[in-house]
């Protein structure tokens, strides 16, 4: 139950601020329980740094249940570490071996500037949602929930896409730093559901334009995003975005 204990070398990106130049620092960590989560291992590192009078490593985290999308980290070159369908906060140290060196980097993308150490600014995602990732319905304006039936399988498809946690792993893992998986998940959810249909044309065109403006790369269909996505969003959503985009650009009246 107490598990084995690991001795690790951590190679962590340290950067004092957005404008500062950063670099890697190596830290030795001893006696890491295999039952710890990856973030708890970083907590231990930070307590050790605190004891040594150094500044702890800054990293984003909040719910530690794999849902809020706050945590990030490129772990040995893989977004959220080696396990599929898992966020960093749900990754446990039993995935590592005694004596391992673990390289920890922040998400790297022009649209996600580093704020400090492993913390990046993902507000680009907010601006993409602002550009059209919603249904324009004011509070109080809604018809009865059952007024428009939604076939069960479509609802499931929409839910698959809606499960996106907005962590940015798709961008981080993509060799082009493309945000297509994120954008397509929201476009898909709202294109599938009848509630989102009235705005589908304008939505896809605006969200793609915003995505480009934020400086994300283009999609080369390598599917690395799907493999890295902790919510296991499928690239079939990207195909749906492309369809929506084609339709909108050929027919829309704007």
């Amino acid at each position, binding site marked *: 139950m107490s598990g084995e204990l690991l001795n690790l070398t951590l*190679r962590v*990106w340290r950067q004092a601020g957005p404008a500062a130049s950063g670099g*890697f620092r190596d830290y030795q960590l001893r006696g890491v329980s295999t039952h710890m989560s990856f973030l708890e291992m970083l907590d231990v590192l930070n307590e050790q740094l605190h004891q040594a009078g150094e500044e702890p490593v800054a990293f984003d985290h909040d719910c530690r249940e794999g849902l809020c999308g706050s945590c990030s980290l*490129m772990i*040995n*070159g*893989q*977004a959220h570490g*080696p396990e*599929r369908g898992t966020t960093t906060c749900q990754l446990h140290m039993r995935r590592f071996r005694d004596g391992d060196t673990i*390289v920890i*980097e922040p998400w*790297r*993308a*022009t*649209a996600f500037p580093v704020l400090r150490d492993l913390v990046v600014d993902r507000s680009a995602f907010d601006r993409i949602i602002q550009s059209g990732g919603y249904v324009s319905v004011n509070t109080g304006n809604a018809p009865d929930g059952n007024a428009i039936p939604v076939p069960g399988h479509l609802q499931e498809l929409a839910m698959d896409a809606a499960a996106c946690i907005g962590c940015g792993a798709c961008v981080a*893992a993509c*060799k*082009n*730093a*493309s945000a*297509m998986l994120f954008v397509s998940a929201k476009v898909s959810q709202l294109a599938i559901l009848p509630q989102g249909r009235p705005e589908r044309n304008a939505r896809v*065109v605006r969200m*793609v*334009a915003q*995505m*480009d403006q934020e*400086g*994300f*790369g*283009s*999609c*080369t*269909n*390598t*599917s*690395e995003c799907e*493999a*890295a996505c902790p919510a296991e969003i499928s*690239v*079939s959503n*990207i*195909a*749906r*975005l*492309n*369809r*929506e*985009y*084609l339709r*909108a*650009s*050929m027919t*829309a009246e*704007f």
Partner: protein
Amino acid sequence: MNALVRILSLPACYLSRLPGCGPLVRACSTSVGQKILMAITGLSLCGFLVAHLAGNLKLFAGEQDFNQYAAMLHSLGPALAAAETGLFVVFVAHLGLALSTTAMSRAARTQAYEVMESKQGVFALPQGGASGWMLVTGAVVLVFLVCHLIDLRLKVNPFVDYRPAVAAGAAGSAGGHVNEFLAVRQVLTSSPSRYIYLLGLVALGIHLAHGVQSALQTLGISHRRWNPLFRLISLLFAWGIAVGFISLIAWAHAVNR
């Protein structure tokens, strides 16, 4: 590179002034629009490859049949020139879009990772399989194509002996034209052309292996049930084209021996 991209975008600027086309051109200039155009131009080029391979397979049918086919093409005159021009435009557009989207992606990550590891498992090629080699294989195919045009369109490759083909043509074996059958055989058996061709065709196979299925995805042709079949067909198509052309090199060697 940015200057190049700007020059390449000039046609789009002019096109957008056509009545009704402004919004469409704008839609095509986004990252998604550019990829869609790449998919369309790529698949068009695939269409050309099919026609080209079908014609060239006449080599197996023998000298007379092949030369008749060549003569038929020559007889098309202005239509052939128009088709060649169209092909050239499509090719340049495909290339220009490749450079443009690559530039976009390079700018999207200016600081590289210390380590980067795929989560997709094992690939036949490093760097995430064929998709990681599109620019490289595309460049190799471009080099191959230039050589190919020098060899057989212009027929000015100093390493190739065109005399038998010209002589046979003059003797009337190909209706007054150069004997294309002999010219092809000559090119395919000479060095370094045959090596360049072999390399170029392997690169083409890799390029298409990702390119075709990627084009389908970009055009939104995706279905949970059919995707595995789409992938299989794409792969078969890619290597069918590549192996089809490579078989001609093998044939030339066999005949020459």
